[in-house]
């Protein structure tokens, strides 16, 4: 029976020739992930299960990122619980403050997820790694505990929606606009219990970082996972982050899909998701007059180096509006360092933005930028539910880094081209040449020996 890419990965990890949608199976896990919020309950369940050691200390990843650096005493205790467990179990991939980052930016950066892997994480945005051609999905803490104890977990084989991409994005439109547009088309439960499988000639036009942004928000359409085919860009990225061999899976040409959705990337425009659902999507140019109190540029969705480059291109030489607090949060320490080496850190601080150490922070209303009643934020994060970033009467508008940076400068939601004509895409997204953008040749010059660009390392 022909299979989708997701079905092939599940079948292979379950030791089965073929699988069908709806089938329940138990599959072996390549990686089990948890964070400071979800790992402590998982550790408790792990002990209740009577398990003594994790199934493989190289295949458990623990990241304190949500309320870390510890935001209060309770958060400190949760982080400590996870740290103690990591030490006791000699977990190889425990990332302490100082080398940590937001988990879903960190794992691809460290090459911990490669094509064909089967990954579970006690965090809904674990679906991010579909960008790398892996099957990865979010689970709960008890699932994580079972995964740590057995190295196996139950899954229901999903059917899939085929998302056919054509054309190339242009102007300020990018990965975030693609996924928001898709969620606007199919709704927040448009892919419930299903996979999103991205295909078509347009895939090649998306950078690895943009694919990570797209897969990251598959869950916002209710999807179990959102997966990209493995191509030259994937292979180049994989080679740059890991030496581990991996396996490529390809959907059968005659695989059966529940539905097909087509998107022409050349027609994408910068969009915004209005409160309080990621599906309330409109072009930024049609936002009307929406004054903004806070702008957050960061998160596992858009906190990678390309995102910071885009934001910096708009903020460089401009000022954050007096009525706006602009908070920039590089997603990992390496991205943070790269932003310093490329001179982006100076761009942000000179513009009057705050540059924070990596953390989830305001994305889930944790710390570092909580909203008061009646306040509005434009955020490059992934959820605009009621109360997500603070007071239940606050509002969140989701957008990509260009729209967010333009909002920081103008204090309103605008199409970014009203602030700055979009530069050439290749140039905007790539590591700047020394002297690029002028002005700070000295600090930029160092970028030549800097760590490779975000998705790459």
């Amino acid at each position: 029976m022909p299979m989708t890419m997701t079905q092939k990965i599940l079948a292979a990890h379950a030791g089965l020739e073929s699988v069908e949608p709806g089938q329940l199976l138990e599959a072996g896990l390549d990686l089990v992930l948890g964070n400071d919020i979800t790992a402590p309950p998982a550790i408790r369940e792990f002990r209740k299960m009577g398990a003594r050691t994790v199934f493989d200390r190289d295949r458990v990843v623990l990241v304190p990122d949500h309320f870390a650096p510890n935001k209060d005493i309770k958060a400190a205790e949760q982080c400590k619980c996870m740290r103690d467990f990591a030490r006791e179990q000699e977990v190889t991939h425990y990332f302490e403050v100082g080398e940590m980052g937001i988990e879903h930016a960190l794992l691809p950066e460290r090459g911990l997820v490669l094509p064909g892997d089967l990954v579970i994480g006690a965090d809904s945005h674990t679906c991010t790694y579909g960008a790398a051609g892996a099957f990865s999905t979010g689970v709960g803490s008890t699932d994580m505990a079972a995964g740590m104890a057995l190295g196996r977990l139950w899954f229901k084989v999903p059917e899939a929606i085929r998302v056919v991409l054509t054309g190339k994005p242009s102007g300020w439109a990018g990965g975030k606009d693609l996924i928001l547009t898709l969620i606007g088309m199919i709704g927040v439960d448009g892919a419930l219990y299903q996979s999103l499988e991205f295909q078509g000639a347009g895939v090649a036009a998306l950078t690895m970082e943009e694919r990570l942004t797209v897969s990251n928000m598959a869950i916002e359409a209710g999807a179990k996972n959102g997966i990209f085919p493995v191509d030259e860009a994937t292979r180049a990225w994989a080679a740059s982050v890991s030496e581990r061999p991996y396996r490529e899976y390809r959907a059968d040409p005659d695989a059966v899909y529940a539905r097909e959705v087509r998107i022409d990337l050349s027609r994408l425009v910068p969009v915004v998701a209005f409160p309080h659902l990621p599906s309330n999507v409109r072009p930024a140019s049609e936002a009307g007059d929406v004054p903004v109190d806070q702008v957050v540029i960061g998160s596992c969705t858009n906190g990678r180096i390309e995102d910071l480059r885009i934001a910096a291109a708009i903020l460089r030489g401009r000022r954050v509006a007096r009525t706006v607090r602009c908070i920039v949060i590089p997603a990992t320490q390496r991205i943070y360092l790269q932003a310093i080496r490329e001179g982006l850190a100076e761009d942000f601080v000179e513009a009057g933005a705050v540059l924070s150490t990596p953390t989830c922070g305001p994305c889930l209303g944790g710390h570092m930028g909580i909203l008061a009643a009646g306040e509005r934020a434009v955020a490059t994060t992934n959820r605009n539910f009621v109360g997500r970033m603070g007071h239940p009467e606050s509002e969140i508008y989701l957008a990509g880094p260009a729209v967010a940076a333009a909002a920081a400068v103008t204090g309103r939601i605008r199409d970014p081209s009203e602030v700055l004509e979009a530069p050439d895409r290749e140039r905007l997204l790539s590591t700047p040449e020394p002297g690029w953008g002028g002005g700070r040749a000295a600090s930029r010059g160092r970028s030549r020996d800097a760590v490779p660009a975000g998705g790459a390392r």
Partner: protein
Amino acid sequence: MTAAGRAFKYGDNVDTDAIIPARYLNTSDPAELAAHCMEDLDPSFAGAVRPGDVLVGGRNFGCGSSREHAPVAIKAAGVSCVIAASFARIFYRNAVNIGLPILESPEAAAGIEAGDRLSLDFGSGTISDGTKNSSWRSAPFPPFMRRIMEAGGLTEYVRARLTEAGDSGAEGGGS
């Protein structure tokens, strides 16, 4: 297994931030989570809910984060079952794994009104509304999931497996 209680009814896309806001996630104590259950959507819920009561939602109940704190908060609040037209998949997994009964029935979710007296039979998947004098059937759980629920949740299920296998990773006795 049966349950009975009053219906608390909400709409579509009840998300996990509504069920338990992230600002309370610095704890995983069930009683504390229960005290803030549904707070941003219905501040009166935690005070009004009684053991056995039933949460009724529309489509995509439990969408959003993977926080198991959401079904845990609902269960600890005394809710005997969640009925919805459809569930977000991680919430569904989590509910099964922690042993919170959930029933999927678009008809029941549409027919039940707030305050209705409900009685539930989980074996047959029957939902009876005493106030309306009507009843609905929901699809029973597949056998695989029923085994997990019958074991008392995934933790007990894995525990039994580890003990059976005499797995080197497992402890023998009770803990």
